[in-house]
């Protein structure tokens, strides 16, 4: 019994060692928590900054859209019929009398059509028959075609 107690006491750790182990473990946990918190905060801060940027860009998009509308309207004001007439008159232009108009026969001229401001909703498909073979043939096909051409040219030159 004494022997067992002796062995136990011999191999048990000193109290100060146990305390250091606990302190070390707790410190390690704290450091880990701090690291995780730090990473989380960093990512969260970045996400917040990006979120703010997105909101700011959305506001900018709306403002730019408005500015675009403003510019179109401003251009229309500058090009309005009354403004244009005033400018033309100030430059010395006058309405042409009908008897001074000279009509010419211009081959291919077509009557002026209504304005096209956007593509038609009829979808256009690129016709495959207009696609040159360079875009579709493989190198072996190319070699085969050219070899055949070379061979036929050789035959033709023979008397």
């Amino acid at each position: 019994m004494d022997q067992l107690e002796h062995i136990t006491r011999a191999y048990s750790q000193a109290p100060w060692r146990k305390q250091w182990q606990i302190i070390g473990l707790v410190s390690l946990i704290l450091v880990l928590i701090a690291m995780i918190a730090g990473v989380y905060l960093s990512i969260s801060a970045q996400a917040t900054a990006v979120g703010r940027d997105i909101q700011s860009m959305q506001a900018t998009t709306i403002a730019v859209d408005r500015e675009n509308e403003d510019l179109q309207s401003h251009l229309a004001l500058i090009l309005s019929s009354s403004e244009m007439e005033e400018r033309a008159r100030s430059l010395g232009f006058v309405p042409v009398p009908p008897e001074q108009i000279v009509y010419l026969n211009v081959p291919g001229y077509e009557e002026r059509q209504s304005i096209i401001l956007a593509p038609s909703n009829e979808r256009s498909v690129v016709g495959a028959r207009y696609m040159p073979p360079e875009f579709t043939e493989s190198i072996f096909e190319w070699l085969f075609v050219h070899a055949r051409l070379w061979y036929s040219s050789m035959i033709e030159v023979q008397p």
Partner: protein
Amino acid sequence: MSRAATLKDQERTWRYSFVGVMLAVLPFFIFLQVVRIQIDPKLLENVRAKIEISQHAQHMIVPARGQLYDRRGNLLAGNRTVYEVGVELRDVVNAQTIAQTVSAILGVDYQDALARASLTSSENAVYSVLVDNVPQEEIDKLAVVKEQMDALYAKTKGENVPSLIGLVYYPHLGRIYPESSLASNILGFVSRERKGYFGIEERFDGLLSGTSKTILVPLDPNRAEDLPKVPDGASLVLTIDREIQRAMEEIIDRAVAGSGSDSGTLVVVDPRTGEVLALATTPRMDLNEFWKYSQVFPKDTPFNRAVSQAYEPGSVFKVLTMATGLDVGAVTPDTVFVDTGAIEIGGTVIYNWNQGAWGPQDMTGCLQHSLNVCLAWINTQTGANNFYRYMQSFGIGHVTGIDLAGEASGRLKMPGDNDWYAADLGTNAFGQGVAATPIQMAVAISAVANKGVMMAPQIVNSVISEGYQHQIERRVIGVPLKPETAKTLTHMLARSLEVESSDALVTGYRVAGKTGTAEVPTPFGYTSNATNASFVGWGPVDSPRFLVYVWLEKPTTSPWGSVVAAPVFREAVESLVVLLNLPPDDVRRQLNSSIDGQN
């Protein structure tokens, strides 16, 4: 154990017990609340709504209103930045200063602004609008005053210190009409509430304005999301030509002033397609000042007489009567009618415009001298059934379906109607007792100019929506006449103008046309001296490119269409042929023959 230790243990026990009880009771209450929320869906919805509101800001996305273009791509209606000026009630320091400032700079009523700025802030009242649609220039002035006031009184303490704190302004898009009053009767306008009134703006309000969407924007930047894409309103390309419209407006304005008329209307249509190239009426208003509407259009004044005001057209209607007579074979151009100066139909005696007897006349002569008696006689030969069947196929008494708000249908009394009498067959022949709008008349008569085919009047050429341009298809709305009838009548009308040396004749271009002078009916009959003077004409006769309809309401210088309306037609055509690049007939024939020679 000492007494002190026992006391300490008891205190500790009490604390532990308290904490234990609390830990047991709180979950119980939480459980109770969970059960209550589960069994009461309204409570659940309220809780959810409160959470949503506390975490989000409500934001309404209003798409840009679609633009309006003329056929050449000139912008007729667009958008610009305007501001809504209001007060954040919680922040207001001095309501009087705010009211005085907005009253002085923006012209808002002082008492109204003061009442709005003085509202007490509460959960239900946080913001009050003072004025909307304020242009950038005025906001710039307001900003300068606000800045100066902040600099002057920022550090001043005490009551009644002048302050504009709480005054805010938010930008949004508002309507602008770069051409001011040009084509105003066609376009209509958009009110402060962003609702379209009259014309295109009203007719296509839903299409132009698009669909607004209210969204919840998270206040937490971590939850920032993409704003949903709300497509802008569709834009429209009109068939109107800005330059032609402007020229026609100038011409009709001069005509109204020169003839002392109450109003004037001038319609230009391409008879081949039904496209309306110009539609000029009086009065017109600057659409950028739409709040002056009631001043410009007092009482029941129509916004667009061409489509909204039906009137008795008078002798221009004879074109349709003659067309019917020729088409059913009741008469031919060579049919001779001996005009005795009067004819009795249904118990009513009909006389000519000058009460005179014109003797033997062929059908061209009847049109040339605009003989009521002759045309009434033609109707007796045509028969009521045929006549009214043709009038219906010409669209008289029905809306044309033009893409403008407020179109009137006019009135065509038919046999069987309570107020139809046999005499109406005679009076209707020369445009009396029948009401039609100028656009109805123009569309109906365009069948004569277009080989008997009547095209639907078109004012919207194409729609631009979500990046694509959709062309509006042209529609045939009827074929009331045979092509040969249309051709014959066109030559008869051209000849009648040439024989009488009409003021409507245009040098270099052969045109066909007919004058019209109609007495204005009163509740007591045709008792006033006032008339409606009209003219309808088209050309070039061999290949019509335009049809022009002129109406002057109650001219005072002369009551006759041949005197006041015919010269307006000539002036309009002289301008049109230049703007449409139409060479004189002989030059055109030479050019065509040279092209044929080359081919």
